[in-house]
């Protein structure tokens, strides 16, 4: 009989297979060389780059350990990845003592979120001016 644990196992197995597929795909194929990778709808329609433009190319360079090339494609993404990883660690901490909550508030609190948003929006404007 199938129990809940089996479904959980299947779910993680599918996630693992999909993730490995995506990692291999982006490591060995540069998205700018193939038409099969999805294009940014905003850029295709208006020519304006959105804050996420270049993320696929940046991921390709990161998987090949070419940090500088990745930074050139999308600075915000490369800088956001360590932040996002830290965030997932904080979210999955089972116990939350005062010190962890304090750091959580500093790194992911109201102010931090607005600073991050400000960075994203100014990056959006600047990359279209330069």
């Amino acid at each position, binding site marked *: 009989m199938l129990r809940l644990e089996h479904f959980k196992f299947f779910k993680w197995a599918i996630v693992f297979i999909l993730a490995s597929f995506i990692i291999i795909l982006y490591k060995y194929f540069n998205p700018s060389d193939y*038409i*099969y990778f*999805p*294009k940014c*709808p*905003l850029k295709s329609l208006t020519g304006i780059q*959105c*804050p*996420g433009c270049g*993320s696929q190319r940046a991921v390709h360079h990161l998987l090949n350990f070419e940090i500088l090339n990745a930074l050139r494609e*999308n600075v*915000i*993404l490369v800088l*956001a990845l360590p*932040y*996002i990883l830290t*965030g*997932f660690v904080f*979210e999955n901490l089972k116990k*939350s003592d005062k010190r962890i*909550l304090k750091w959580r*508030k500093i790194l*992911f*609190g*109201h102010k931090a*979120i*607005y600073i*991050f*948003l400000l960075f*994203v929006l100014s990056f959006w404007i600047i990359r279209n001016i330069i």
Partner: protein
Amino acid sequence: MENKNTERPPKTWLLESILATLFCCLPLGIAGIVNASKVESRFYAGDVDGANRASSAAKKWTTWSFGLGIAGIILYMIFVFGFAASGAF
């Protein structure tokens, strides 16, 4: 999902909405980020119910932006492979 815990804010969906902003559809992702900050500010202002409401709003925006992003990718794939199959490229 109600969070009656008064020590730790409810899930803000911040990380998921940042990922959605940087990888798929931007405006909905930004709405998610704004709601994530509302979760934090309301929670620390003592408004736990408001924080829970902002949390579910953030979840809604993030889910929609991921959903639309994935739908867009699938449509694009169908479009490109359709063209490739018909020999247009």
